[in-house]
């Protein structure tokens, strides 16, 4: 069966510091991968998605970037965090070809101080 991991689970970082959040998927190959941010415990905002290694689509211009160095690894980064980057970051995967539902990881709670 497939599983998705995110780490760290929680993170407190000062403004201006760098960020690296990691997401890995097990038990599947060539998944579509997604990064979402959830602010204030409500709506999800799609940040990035990837259909393959090195292929990243950005949904909104912002202080963040994403990379996919391996088939089942998706990394969310920032060079300098802003207060507004605080939130709950969720990684998700979907089957490669007939991508219907997405399956979410446990999330990372980021607090920028």
């Amino acid at each position: 069966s497939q599983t998705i991991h995110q780490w760290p689970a929680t993170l407190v970082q000062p403004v201006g510091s760098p960020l690296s959040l990691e997401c890995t998927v097990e038990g599947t190959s060539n998944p579509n991968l997604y990064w979402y941010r959830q602010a204030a415990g409500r709506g999800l905002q799609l940040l990035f998605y990837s259909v393959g290694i090195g292929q990243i689509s950005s949904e909104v211009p912002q202080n963040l970037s994403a990379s996919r160095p391996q088939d089942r690894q998706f990394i969310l980064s920032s060079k300098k965090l802003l207060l507004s980057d605080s939130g709950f970051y969720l990684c998700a995967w979907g089957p490669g070809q007939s991508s219907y539902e997405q399956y979410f990881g446990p999330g990372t709670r980021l607090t920028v101080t």
Partner: protein
Amino acid sequence: AQSVAQPEDQVNVAEGNPLTVKCTYSVSGNPYLFWYVQYPNRGLQFLLKYITGDNLVKGSYGFEAEFNKSQTSFHLKKPSALVSDSALYFCAVRDADTGRRALTFGSGTRLQVQP
């Protein structure tokens, strides 16, 4: 563009009563529709989906949803609510006729089931 509306921020029901969480959508083509549930500080869990076929789809934990094309709705239902159903529920849509694989989520509805 695709969008989802969940008109109720919160729904309150008594345990044992039926529940409905409303969702309407907008897509230019045919919709793929989904419901997810989120418990506090957790990721989203997939409940059910409509892709094609029967308008009434059944999912996990006794939930079901009815696709209504004329009303562009996909309301989530359960015949008898449990206290453990209390959580945040999200409706999502994807346009089946575009190559875009990403889902668009509604703003969420908090379900509170009172004992």
